[in-house]
Structures are given as C-alpha cells and as structure tokens.
C-alpha cells in the first residue's frame, strides 16, 4: 500500500468515526434543545393562562392540546415538568411526538393542573437529516482528499518516486554513478544524502575487494612460479621412485593451484567488465575450430560429435571470452561424458544448444553454475561459473536441462 493511501485511509477512518460520534452527540443535544425551547414557550403560555385564571376565575377554553383542570390538593411541591409524549395525529394518521408541559398552580384557594402540549420534531426526521449531513460531509472530505493526493503525488511525491526508481536501477557492476534528484523536502533530501553515503561506501568497498582479488591473484603467481621452477629442477636430479612420484605430485598440485588462481582472476576481470572490445563473433566458426582442438580428447574417449541443426548464429562479444565460453562448454561435455558417448550441437539464430550423454548428475539448473560445484571430475569447478558470468555480462541467458542427455541452452540477447 502506498504511503499516502495508508495515511489517507487512516485519516479517513478516524474522520468517519469522529463524525459519527459528533452526529450521535448532536442528536441528543438537538433533542434536548428542542425540548428546552418547547418548555420555554409552554411555560410562557402557562403563565398567561395562570394570569387569566387569576383575573377571571374561569377556566379558559383551548384547543384539544391544552387542558386546564381543577384538582385536589396535590402531595409534594408544586413543580412544573416537561416530558415527551407521543399522541395520535389523525391528519397524518400516525403517532407524532409532542412536548408535554405540566404545571400545578394554586390560585385563589383552588389547585389547577395546567397541561400544555406542543408538537415537536420527529426523531426519524432528525436522524435522517443528521445522516444525510454525515454522508455528504464524508463524500466531500473523501473527494477533496482524493484530488489533493493526486496533485501531491504529481508534485511532492514525484521526486521521491523517481529517486526510488533510480535506486532500484542502480547496480554496482556497471560503473554508472547513482544520481538522485533534490526534492526540496527535508526528509527526502536527508534520505538522498544517506543513500549517497551508503552507495559510495559500498562502491568503494566493492572496488577495493575486486582490486584485492586481482592483486592477490597476481601476487600469488610469482611465488608459485619459483616453487614450480625449483621442483622442476629437482626432478632432473637422480631420484628414487618415491621421491620422483612425490615431486611430480607436488608439481601437478601446484599447477592445479595456478589454474584455479587464473580462473578466479578471469572471473574477477569478467565481473569488472575488463573485456570491453566486442565484435560480431560467428559461433559456428568458433565451435568448429574448438572441435578440431578437442579432436584428440574426443578420439581418446571415442566420443562422436553430431550437428543436429546449423544455422547462422552471431553474437556480439569479446572474441577472447567467446573462445573461453565455447571451450568451457565443450570441455564440460567431454569431461562428463561416458566412453563411446556422443555430443550433439545445434545452432539457430539467437540460440545454441550443446548436449552430451553422461551419467545422471545431482545438480539442478540453479546449482550447476555456482562456483566450486563439481561432479566426479578433478576440475576446479569454475568452468561453468565462468560461462554463466560471461552470459550475464553479455545479457545472454544459459540454462541446464537433464533428461536422457545433459543439455546446455544458451539464448543470445534479443537485439542481435
């Protein structure tokens, strides 16, 4: 729910409750006021009657609503009273409310009871008119607040909404700076300042982390080179079988470490968009060239390769990255294949598919591209992570499916 809507809803509900209370209170107050005014006018009338009796000694004749009777000496004090009664009105054929004023007086040794009545306002009428007033007031308030809010949305909230959108679009990976409009509203401008501060801090941290990864990887390569060179020299000495095997195992472990390091460095560089020079790459050409390179590997595992579909397929990408991507996908298809298995390749406009036979894998589409996810192979588990990273930085998407075969479907961006 929008902030304004929320405020309005609360405000409106509170306002409606208040109006209802006011109306109920108003009803009682108005009723009391009508009765009081009736009492005043009837009291005046009774005083006139009283004077008339005093002067004439006769009972005056009135309309049927007024009655003056001689009564015996009443008990208690002589006190006027007013109350509301309902009498049948034959004209309108219904009960009508009347204010009834009763006064007992003592004039010239006789007690009289003066009872005067006056028609008063109907309760239904009062409730109805109050209800109408309440409804009209609510409608008026609601529509006014609706229009005011719409205007406010366009003016006061516009800057805020735009800034929210800018923050939503902001991404550390592309280096575009965050730009927020000044709203000239203290709270929003304060929020802008805070967001600026936060993003700058985060950006700085992100950048230094990237730099650290890169520098650390570089710095690792030199000591690795020294150890590797010395081990290689050691291997040239006359060694017994045990020492020989240990040296070779150490060399191979060091090489794995070095490859891992280079792959991490490559990932960091792709994330940092350090491969900017893009050109239109013919995917078919790269695939064919790579397949020739892979020939000995394919031959050793007796894997056959088949093109099920071959259409023109171009991708605007850095050529070095294109080679790495195809290379890693093919490596994956070979390394996780079974002896005498096969690989099928299909290229279409805007999409290509590489499928291979192989044992059932435990990884799903969500997991397989994560870093350091590896099946039974001795690889470092970064090959497909690099593929995914390249796809992400080039607005392509890649998905993995496992049916009777393992398939990687790469969908190229639409603008091609």
């Amino acid at each position, binding site marked *: 729910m929008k902030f304004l809507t929320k405020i309005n809803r609360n405000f409106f509900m509170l306002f409606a409750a208040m109006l209802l209370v006011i109306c109920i209170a108003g009803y009682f107050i108005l009723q009391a006021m009508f009765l009081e005014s009736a009492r005043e006018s009837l009291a005046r009338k009774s005083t006139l009657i009283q004077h008339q009796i005093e002067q004439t000694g006769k009972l005056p004749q009135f309309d049927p609503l007024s009655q003056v009777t001689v009564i015996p000496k009443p008990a208690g004090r002589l006190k006027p009273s007013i109350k509301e009664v309902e009498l049948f009105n034959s004209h309108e054929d219904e009960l009508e409310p009347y204010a009834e004023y009763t006064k007992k007086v003592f004039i010239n040794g006789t007690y009289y009871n003066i009872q005067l009545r006056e028609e008063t306002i109907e309760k239904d009428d009062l409730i109805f008119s109050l209800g109408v007033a309440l409804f009209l007031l609510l409608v008026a308030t609601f529509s006014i607040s609706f229009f005011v809010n719409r205007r406010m949305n366009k003016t006061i909230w516009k800057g805020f909404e735009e800034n929210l959108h800018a923050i939503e679009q902001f991404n550390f990976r592309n280096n575009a700076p965050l730009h927020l409009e000044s709203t000239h509203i203290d709270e929003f401008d304060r929020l802008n300042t805070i967001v600026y501060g936060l993003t700058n801090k985060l950006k700085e941290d992100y950048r230094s982390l990237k730099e650290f990864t890169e520098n650390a990887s*570089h*710095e690792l*390569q*030199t000591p*690795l*080179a*020294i*150890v*590797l*060179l*010395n081990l*290689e*020299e050691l*291997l*040239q000495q006359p060694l017994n*079988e045990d020492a*020989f*095997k240990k040296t*070779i195992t150490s*060399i*191979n472990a*060091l*090489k794995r470490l*070095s*490859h891992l390091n*280079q792959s991490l*460095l*490559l990932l960091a560089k792709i994330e940092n968009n*350090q*491969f900017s020079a893009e050109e239109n790459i013919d995917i078919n050409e790269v695939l064919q060239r*790579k397949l020739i*390179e*892979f020939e*000995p*590997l394919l*031959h*050793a*595992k007796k894997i056959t390769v088949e093109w099920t579909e071959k259409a023109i397929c171009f991708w605007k990408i850095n050529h*070095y990255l294109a*080679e790495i991507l195809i*290379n*890693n996908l093919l*490596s994956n298809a*070979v*390394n996780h294949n079974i002896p005498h298995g096969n690989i099928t390749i299909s290229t279409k406009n805007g999409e290509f598919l590489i499928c291979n036979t192989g044992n059932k894998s435990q990884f799903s589409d969500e997991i397989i591209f994560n870093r350091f996810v590896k099946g039974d*192979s*001795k*690889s470092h588990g970064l*090959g497909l992570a690099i593929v995914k990273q390249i796809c992400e930085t080039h607005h392509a998407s890649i998905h993995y499916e496992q049916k009777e075969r393992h398939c990687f479907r790469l969908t190229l961006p639409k603008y091609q």
Partner: protein
Amino acid sequence: MKLLIVEDEVDLLIAISNYLTKENYLCELADSYHKAEEKIVLYEYDVILLDITLGDGNGLDLLKSIKKHNVQAGIIILSAKNSLDDKISGLDLGADDYMTKPFQLTELNSRIKALLRRRKFDGSHLVAFNEITLDTDSKSVIVNKQRITLTRKEYELLLYFMINKNRVLTKEAIAEHLWEDNVDLSDNFDFIYTHMNNLRKKIKRCGGNDYIKTLYGMGYQFTDQ
C-alpha cells in the same frame, strides 16, 4: 647465445638463469628496471627475457628502449598478469612472445629455441639427435636418411622432446605444451599415449632407436644414456 634476464624476483631470476646456463646459454641478470636499462644500452643480446612488473618501472617502457638500442634482440615477456591488454600491447611494441607465470622451464626453453630458429640465430633450421634430424622450416623428419611422415601433434611432440633432451618431462607438461591452456584437460591424458606410441612406431619402422624412456609411469625422458 647471449641472454639477458630481467626479473625483480631474485629467487625466480636465479632459478631461470641456473637452468638456462645448463642449457649452454650465456646469461646476464638484471633485477631492476634501472640495471636492465644500463645493460641494454651498453651490451648486445640475442634474447631478452623481460618481466613486465618491475619494482622501479614498467617492463613495457623498457621494451621501447630495447627496440631503440638492441634492435636484433628477440624478446620474450614473462608476466604474472595473464592480461590480454598487456599481451597485445607487448606484442605491438615488438615483443616476440608472451609467457604467463608460472611457466615451466622446458616450455621457456622451447620458446627461446623457437624464437632463435625464427630469427635464424643458429644459422640452422635443423634440430638433430643421433640418427634423427628435424627440419623446422619444412617441418619434415628424417630418420636414418629416410623421411617419415608425422601428424602435426606427433611432430610437435618430437620437437619438444629433442629440444628438451635428457630432461625429465611430466606428461602434464607435454599435454600443456601440445594444447596450451585452451583445453581444460582435468584428468584426461590418455590421448598422449596414443601420440607417443604412434611416434615410437614410426621411428622404429625406419630402424631408429626408441629414445623415449618412461619413468615410473609418470614422466618421460628423451635420452640415449
């Protein structure tokens, strides 16, 4: 052959020069930009191995100075950065080859030899070992005066063995030399045996000796000892 090795990491510098001295190169060492620049101006070299990240300067600047004073020298860049930009600008500035650390000494030796052959420093394009002679120009192999036909990979394998003769080579190093870093080989080296066996058969067929010695199933040595 006179070599200059420019590398600010002294341990690495010594390891490289020890190996290359054994391979009968005359090595001179420089562990800083300053020292390297001095040597480049004063002396002439056949090959210069150049580290890009030096403590007191950038190897790429040194490259420009080499091109001015030591025109005939072949240059191999040794870099910890596997950076495409550095590689391109290095090669643009006139370097002949680019190697990423860590590299293997046998690989370095192969690259130096290849560079020397390209520049005809040896005065010969022939690599010989007893009855086997390899012509790097025509990429042909002669065993006992008989010409044998090898596939590209078999030829490269034989050349690698002959240049690094008597040295113990791991099968990983051989695989990497033949396919560089392009193929993620992981644990699959079976295909090397196929190439190795074909090569052995072809040489034997012409009456050549089998110089490829297998060491404990993990390494190889091309030797007549």
